[in-house]
């Protein structure tokens, strides 16, 4: 599915993603400020910069906690303790004999930027922006006090202000931009659900139609084709069985293939075997060749579908081909089982099959496609018909696992 986050859940997860991203900026700034202090110390061994290095550590620890726990308590602690640390860091830099500040104010701005990136908790963009404002205010108050305390000349820090403004702008824009997709989300979700329901319904209808075709329609055709005055005889049982099945409910159960894939069928129990037996009983002379045991590699659903489809092909041979001989050839490979139904009857061309196209399309093609197989038909008027049915086999490992 490609529908993404639903509108009511999106803000929450997007907020969390923003908070994580903002904290990364905070961490990078803190590590940068620590490295800057180390670098200046290394360059000027006479300066006393270790207090600035130590000041960064509580900031790092609290930001880590704020990132993990996501509670107002940790966010507020980060701001309060962090402001003290920023004061300490900046005071250290400003108290050196030759102030390092003038060399590059940006390294002084780094811990302040880290305070702006508090992230904070709570839903909604306004809450997030409020935390940013608090972070900026805390950073500015702490740095101003530190500069005043050191007795140096106060210089406005444009870097932190710019970072603060950019952060607020990005958060607000991202919030506004989400409004539009929000309107389309409910419709997209409704469509996805409707689609699943429609697919299920059409699966069930397909089953119902195929079953109806094999039972009621097939017997109606037998009655229509019988000579007048024929006793109902052999049709009685199947017709009675049809009525029972069709009025009962179990025939439409939409079983999931996962469950069925475990239960394999053997040749004698296979749908293909009974299809051949039944067609022989209807007077067709069938030669079955090839690797008949290959059908044992099919799961029950595929085996049933294959049997019913072959049955329909054989019924078509009886009804339309003008011959009473057919060959059923089975080939098995690791991945699939193929069955070919061949007759040398009168054949047909696709264009002329309008009236009875339902049998081939519905009872054969769609039924096989519904279990992941494929059907190919070769037929030339006057030269017979071959129908190849291929059905995917259950993998060997699955069979071993299931038996």
């Amino acid at each position: 599915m490609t529908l993404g986050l639903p509108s009511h859940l999106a803000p929450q997860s997007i907020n969390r993603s923003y908070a994580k991203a903002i904290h990364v900026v905070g961490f990078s700034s803190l590590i940068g400020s620590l490295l800057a202090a180390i670098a200046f110390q290394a360059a000027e061994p006479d300066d006393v910069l270790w207090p600035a290095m130590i000041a960064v550590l509580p900031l790092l620890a609290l930001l880590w906690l704020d990132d993990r726990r996501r509670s107002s308590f940790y966010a507020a602690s980060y701001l309060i303790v962090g402001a003290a640390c920023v004061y300490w860091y900046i005071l250290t830099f400003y108290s050196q004999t030759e102030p390092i500040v003038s060399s590059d104010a940006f390294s002084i701005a780094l811990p302040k930027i880290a305070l702006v990136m508090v992230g904070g908790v709570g839903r909604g963009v306004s809450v997030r922006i409020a935390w940013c404002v608090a972070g900026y205010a805390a950073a500015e108050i702490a740095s101003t006090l530190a500069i005043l305390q050191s007795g140096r000349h106060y210089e406005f820090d444009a870097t932190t202000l710019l970072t603060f403004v950019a952060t607020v702008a990005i958060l607000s824009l991202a919030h506004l931009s989400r409004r539009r997709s929000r309107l389309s989300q409910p419709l997209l979700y409704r469509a996805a659900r409707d689609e699943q329901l429609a697919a299920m319904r059409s699966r069930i209808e397909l089953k119902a139609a195929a079953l109806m075709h094999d039972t009621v329609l097939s017997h109606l055709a037998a009655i229509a084709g019988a000579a007048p005055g024929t006793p109902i005889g052999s049709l009685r049982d199947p017709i009675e069985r049809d009525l029972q099945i069709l009025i009962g409910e179990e025939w439409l159960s939409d079983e999931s293939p996962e469950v069925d894939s475990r239960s394999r069928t053997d040749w004698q129990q296979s749908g293909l075997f009974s299809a051949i037996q039944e067609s022989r009983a209807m007077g067709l002379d069938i030669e079955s060749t090839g690797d008949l045991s290959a059908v044992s590699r099919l799961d029950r659903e595929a085996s049933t579908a294959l049997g019913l489809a072959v049955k329909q092909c054989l019924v078509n041979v009886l009804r339309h081909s003008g011959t009473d001989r057919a060959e059923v050839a089975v080939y098995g490979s690791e991945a699939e089982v193929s069955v070919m139904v061949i007759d040398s009857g009168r054949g047909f061309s696709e264009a002329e099959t309008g009236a009875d196209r339902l049998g081939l399309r519905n009872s054969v093609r769609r039924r096989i496609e519904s279990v992941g197989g494929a059907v190919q038909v070769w037929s030339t008027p006057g030269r017979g018909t071959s129908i190849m049915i291929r059905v995917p086999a259950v993998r060997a490992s699955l069979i071993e696992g299931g038996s």
Partner: protein
Amino acid sequence: MRERTRQQLDPASTPGIRIVTIALSVGAFGYALVLTALGASEVTNPVFTVGALVALAAAGGILIAMASPYRAPLTARTHFVVQGLALGAALFEALGHWTRNEWIRDDWGAICLGVLLVALGSYRPAREIVVGTTVSALLLGFLTLLQAPQLSTKAPPIAFVIVAIVPLLSLGYASAVFSREIVESTARWQRRASEASVGLVKELRDGVTRSVQQDRVTILNRDVLPFFTELLATGTISNPDRARARQIADSIRRVMVEEVDRSWLENVIELAGGTGPGRSGAAKIVVDDEDRLAASMAADQRTALRALLVALIETPNFDRSDLRISLTASGRQCLGRLVANLSLSEFLLRSNFAPYFAVIRSVFTDMSIDFDAPTLTLRFSYEHQ
């Protein structure tokens, strides 16, 4: 193969994200422009300075263009080109004031590259952004080291490197983390949603089964049941029985052929065309699908198209008497064409329907939209299943 990016996992949100992309690209350029103007006195080689601005503008322009939902998805190649141009801009900027650069903090190259990386976070996977950020930071760090002797202040060179690359690293890694987090939470939600909807469909299955069976039983009760019962009672097949059997079989077959021939697309139209507030009766919508190609659309494709159709039909300005959908085969490809009449401005159409178009684009191989008011033509293609 779908990449794990926000744009590809949640295409409906991307039309909105593009506004942020535009703002970031324009903002980065504006920042560069202002800093260039303020530092004009340091410029030693104006050709490079202008070249730097041009390269940055090109990077932003390409990013904005490729972020369009109509060109989705934004590929690794676009990322590579945008990042290459932005890196080039940073290099040109440095060359522009070579030997006279006073401050690292008012150089814009690294920061603008970082801002563009933030914009890429919604379109590219985290790992790619991390690699891009790290490589760029190494290059720009080295470039800063080369400039250290000419800077006006005394400080250890490493401090200048920190000042130069910390903004880039923090913006780039923040973007990567955002990309990872948003992808993970979207994927997590999708997993949960699909479990929930499988559950819902299972719950509704019994009801659907009953209703399908009811349809069958209605036909059976009317014709077949009395006929079979009668036949079983008499025991022989007479001439009128044969005629009746043929007639019943024909009527059942007719109904079934009709049902089998009707595609999901026609069902959608039929369902969506029902009456509702402010609209009456079924929509006169033509589905032209001779080869029954609607059946070979994948579930995602059906969902996207279904959502657009429902949204169209529910739009107040939609002309319900004129919507045509045609599906034709061309080799392995199926070509779809949807023509609708909408009295909307192009702006409104693009903004209201952008999420649907984005979703359609993400699930079909090819999609194009043409709006010549009031006629909307949507073309898409997909492969036979």
